[in-house]
């Protein structure tokens, strides 16, 4: 491969990586299963990305014994009664054979699902903060076939 070809391959790859990252998420949003999860509040600021609302999920409390920070875990989800809110009360280190499940990682004594931040402008963040404190916020989450979660929006009830 000539240096010139290598240069154009480099440019093409750098252009494709963000497209691929976005494409994978878009596919999850378009074709994945959407569930509503209960949200708990927290509140820092990410130096890289500006204003956002920090979130915590009640299903993140069930850390399996014997796991350490970084361990990948899966939480099987089921509907709460007849409502449209989903929940989970157990986590496993092995991927479930079927059903709806969400993938996470053990971090700081909880499970994180990679959807702990919702980016919002200052006004929206303030409104969401109030609703979060009153525990009226639910997360609309798209879950892909591997259990990967994408937060599509927050629902205030």
């Amino acid at each position: 491969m000539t240096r010139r070809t290598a240069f154009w391959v480099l440019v093409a790859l750098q252009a494709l990586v963000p497209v691929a990252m976005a494409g994978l998420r878009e596919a999850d949003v378009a074709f994945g299963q959407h569930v509503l999860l209960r949200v708990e509040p927290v509140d820092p600021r990410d130096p890289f990305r500006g204003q956002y609302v920090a979130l915590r999920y009640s299903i993140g409390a069930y850390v399996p014994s014997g796991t350490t920070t970084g361990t990948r875990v899966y939480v099987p989800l089921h509907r709460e009664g007849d409502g449209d809110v989903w929940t989970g009360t157990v986590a496993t280190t092995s991927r479930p054979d079927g059903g709806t499940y969400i993938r996470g990682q053990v971090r700081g004594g909880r499970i994180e699902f990679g959807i702990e931040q919702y980016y919002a402008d200052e006004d929206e963040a303030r409104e969401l903060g109030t609703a979060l404190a009153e525990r009226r916020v639910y997360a609309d989450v798209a879950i892909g076939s591997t259990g990967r979660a994408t937060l599509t929006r927050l629902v205030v009830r």
Partner: protein
Amino acid sequence: MASFEQRIAAEAESWADEGLVSREQADAIRARYVDTERVRRRDRFVQTLAFVGAIGIGLGVILFVAANWDAIPRFARLAVLVAGIVAFYVGGDRLSRSRPRVGHALLLLGCLLFGASLFLVGQMFNVSPHQSLAFLLWTAAAAAGAVVLRSEPFAALAAITFAGWIVYELADAEAGEALVVALPVYGVALYAGGTRFGLEVLRRLGAATVFALLFPLTFGDVGDEVADAATGGTAVAAIVALAAAAVALAAALALMRGRATAPWEAGACVAVVALLGVATAVDVGPLVANVALVALALGAVAVGYAAGESWLAGLGIVALAVEAAVRFFDFFERIMPRSIAFLVGGVFVLALAWALERNRDRLVRRPG
């Protein structure tokens, strides 16, 4: 006003026209002044200006996009980022032929925007920051750019983003205290690798990293904390991997031909890695760390002198000066009132600076 190089070129041309010298001799005279230190200095200045400008533009673009983020549809955001990356690379490539330094700055800007896009795409989908992966992808892109474009600025970007990956990986594993050891070991690897493979920018980054991060260990409390830190598997694996890389590169440096100081530099690299390794197991105490820092700084001055590298000698001198000043204040603050301590300390540091500057001038101006 025409520069000396332009005037000598015009003179050579007129000498050739008048038959005083041949056309070949006129060309040789012109060529003699093309690569002078003054020209190289001016080129470096232009390069620095171009990079500062490029970074300014990059920050401006990112801040503008970020400020208007909510108003831009998701696909348009992605299009802006991708078009920006391609435009900077293509523009840089085109410009490289006529204005190589400005062109190179635009190429670097393309890679900076690529890195920013990794974080901004994450924001589009409310993805929590696993910056460690983004930093690793950014490192790969910059390292590939360094190889393909034979670019030191790309190599520097790769080195810095990889350091970012180390920081986030260890912070993510809740082993932040291991950074006091991991980063200087990484600095050693950069210095050894940069020296062996002739990448000046990596040498400078590596040497500065080692001195800056060895310094905290000279304070007793830090050494104590590093030794007591209950670091997990990730931290141990990271430190072992970095230490192995640093020692391997030091071995390659030791076998380097044509550089008289290479074995000494390699020995110093291995010694620093060994010291940091020991520091993770037992409290080495402030005395050992201080002696090691002073020895390393003196070594840098000696190697800088022997290899004719004034920056390395200068770095060693700065390290010695900072070490002397801090220890001096440390000592006198304990035995006399603060105002007197500052007065005496100030006079001491000023005298030290005077002595060091005088010796540095001698070193830099030595013949040969």
